[in-house]
């Protein structure tokens, strides 16, 4: 056989083969995603809200996936312990061979897992852990939740804009508290205000009266009171009520942690008029939220109330789903990070959100909300919007 004709035969065969392959139905592809969550432990409530948000998204959008592509979620409980979280990440990566990790409530757990994402090259979508440094710990981390700097810096500025001249900050003595304090001080002083004093109180504390008394003594125009949610928030509000802080003319601001949406109905009338900064309130009127709330009620019943944990989880899943749709479930970690770093969702229940490619952290509207009574129930009503806020801490502290 002469060279040319054998070559031609070869190319005919090759073309035939390629066509046959192209016309074959796509192979069934299951994308495994590992969810590391703190199902047991003190933050179980938050974990539950987050998981519900993730599950709801999957349920509603499974049909949007390309043909033959499925998503499998593998849930693991880190029991609020960083070393367990690290081990789970190892197992998910080496044993279950997940293509992506998501979740993580607690910042220390995220910090423990971070180096692994770089070593194994597996993307991690953080849907809660709010430590400012986390996205810098590995190039494979992206965050869809928030940082406390993102919330408290705007509210500091906003407070100064209200004409309030003096402020007193009181926060829980651990890193999220420190972040709230630092951010508020920056925002408030940038706006021309003056900080009278900053107090950090012990993490575990049953009675907040001694600390609130200090605020009352100092008579600031506004006080930043930050505690982690649940029992401490209730105790703080009780001290505020007992000492008549508001009757004394002191305005109170905080981050959304103080008044999570599912706790609000149980706090009586004390929180009325309180102002917090947050990324999500169930009272928001935008259509995407109405649809979200309707789907939530249908799936989880009327008594169940979503909160920012749920929406942060929902959006994290949305990001991954968009990635899967774009790549048909086939992606390397670098491709994933390229996509996720530029991801936008103009229509999230919390409004428009996007990821900043420089920091891989979330950029979102921060809402100033006031607690008002609507239809006999308390709700966080958005009274001001600071659009598309990037994490201020990273802007102020560029990487070395």
């Amino acid at each position, binding site marked *: 056989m002469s060279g040319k004709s054998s070559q031609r035969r070869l190319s005919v065969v090759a073309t035939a083969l390629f066509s046959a392959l192209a016309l074959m139905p796509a192979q069934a592809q299951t994308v495994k995603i590992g969810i590391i969550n703190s199902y047991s432990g003190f933050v179980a*409530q938050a974990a539950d809200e987050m998981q519900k948000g993730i599950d709801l998204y999957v349920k509603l959008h499974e049909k949007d996936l390309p043909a033959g592509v499925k998503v499998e979620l593998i849930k693991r409980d880190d029991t609020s312990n960083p070393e367990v979280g690290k081990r789970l990440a190892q197992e998910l990566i080496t044993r279950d061979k997940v293509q992506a990790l998501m979740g993580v409530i607690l910042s220390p757990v995220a910090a423990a897992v971070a180096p692994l994402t770089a070593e194994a090259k597996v993307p991690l979508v953080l849907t809660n852990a709010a430590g400012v440094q986390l996205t810098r710990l590995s190039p494979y981390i992206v965050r869809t939740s928030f940082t406390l700097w993102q919330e408290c810096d705007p509210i500091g500025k906003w407070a100064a804009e209200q004409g309030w001249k003096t402020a007193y900050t009181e926060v829980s003595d651990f890193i999220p508290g420190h972040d709230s304090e630092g951010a508020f001080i920056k925002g408030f002083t940038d706006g021309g205000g003056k900080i009278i004093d900053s107090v950090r109180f012990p993490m575990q504390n049953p*009675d907040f009266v001694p600390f609130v008394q200090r605020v009352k003594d100092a008579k600031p125009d506004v006080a930043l009171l930050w505690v982690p949610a649940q*029992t401490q928030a*209730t105790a703080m509000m009780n001290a505020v009520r007992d*000492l008549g802080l508001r009757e004394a003319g002191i305005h109170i601001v905080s981050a959304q942690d103080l008044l999570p949406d*599912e706790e609000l109905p*149980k706090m009586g009338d004390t929180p009325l008029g309180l102002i917090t900064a947050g990324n999500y309130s169930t009272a928001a009127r935008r259509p995407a939220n109405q649809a979200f709330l309707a789907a939530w009620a249908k799936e989880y019943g009327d008594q169940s109330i979503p909160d920012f944990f749920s929406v942060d989880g929902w959006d994290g899943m949305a990001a991954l789903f968009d990635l899967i749709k774009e790549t048909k479930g086939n992606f390397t970690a670098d491709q994933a990070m390229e996509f996720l770093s530029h991801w936008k969702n103009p229509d999230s229940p919390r409004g428009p959100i996007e990821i900043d490619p420089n920091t891989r952290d979330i950029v979102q509207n921060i809402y100033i909300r006031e607690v008002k009574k609507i239809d006999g129930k308390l709700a966080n009503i958005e009274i001001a919007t600071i659009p598309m806020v990037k994490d201020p801490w990273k802007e102020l502290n560029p990487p070395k």
Partner: protein
Amino acid sequence: MIEAIVSIGFHGLAFAMVLYLISVGLSVTMGLMGFVNLAHGVFAMLGGYVVARLMNRYGVPFALALPAAAIASGLFSIPLERVLYRRFYGGEELDQVLLTMGLIFMSVAGATYVWGPLTQHMEPPAWLSGEVDLGFRSFPAYRSFLIVCGAVLVTGLWLGLERTRFGAQIRAAVDNLRMAQSVGINTSRLFMLTFALGSGLAGLGGALGADLLAISPSYAMQYLVYFIIVVAVGGLGSIRGPFVAALLIGVADTGFKYLLPGLGAFFIYALTMVLLLWRPQGLFGRA
């Protein structure tokens, strides 16, 4: 300045009363039965839940819900005592610690299952809200009520212990169990009744203090350290001891946190350690 001190003193006193009400039962039963009951907070929690649910769900008035909470806790303790606790009186401390730790875990799960994971809301009744004007200044009515309740109950307990036969029996049994048995005191029944009383008081304390010590499923774990400190510092088997200890913890802790909030976490532990080193049996315990 004076204003602040008065305020701190007042609120600290109210906090101390709540701690006392909850812990006095623990002190007596520990001194009487030699039983380290870490799960004591469960009875306080139960009292809190009962009063919160009766008021919020069923609109029962406060004056009725309160005794109901105490009675519920007291009754609930009886089967526990008969079936479980009794086997370990005067026994190995480790067993008691582990048994009651297990009960705490079950209480956390149980409370979450029955009442959900969120904190219970407690609104004081209208006739106790607002402020009480004493002329020179006004005080929050509810906390004043707490202080009054505490004072009344301390007096009542003391009188009960000193003046009634039942009280005499308790005192005898705490002093010398064998001797008490040999003069014919039915110690088994005594234990049961004392335990029920102590748990009922805890339930009352939990209900009254629901405003201060928020009612949530992890109640028994969260506040365990406070109850144990009050009892350890006060001394087992006494009703004066926990009173003084609760005052120390409640008022001094509050005061310290007011003056040096950043170090507030260390005070109560430093105080406990010093006091226990000086008097390991507690301020009013028997050596």
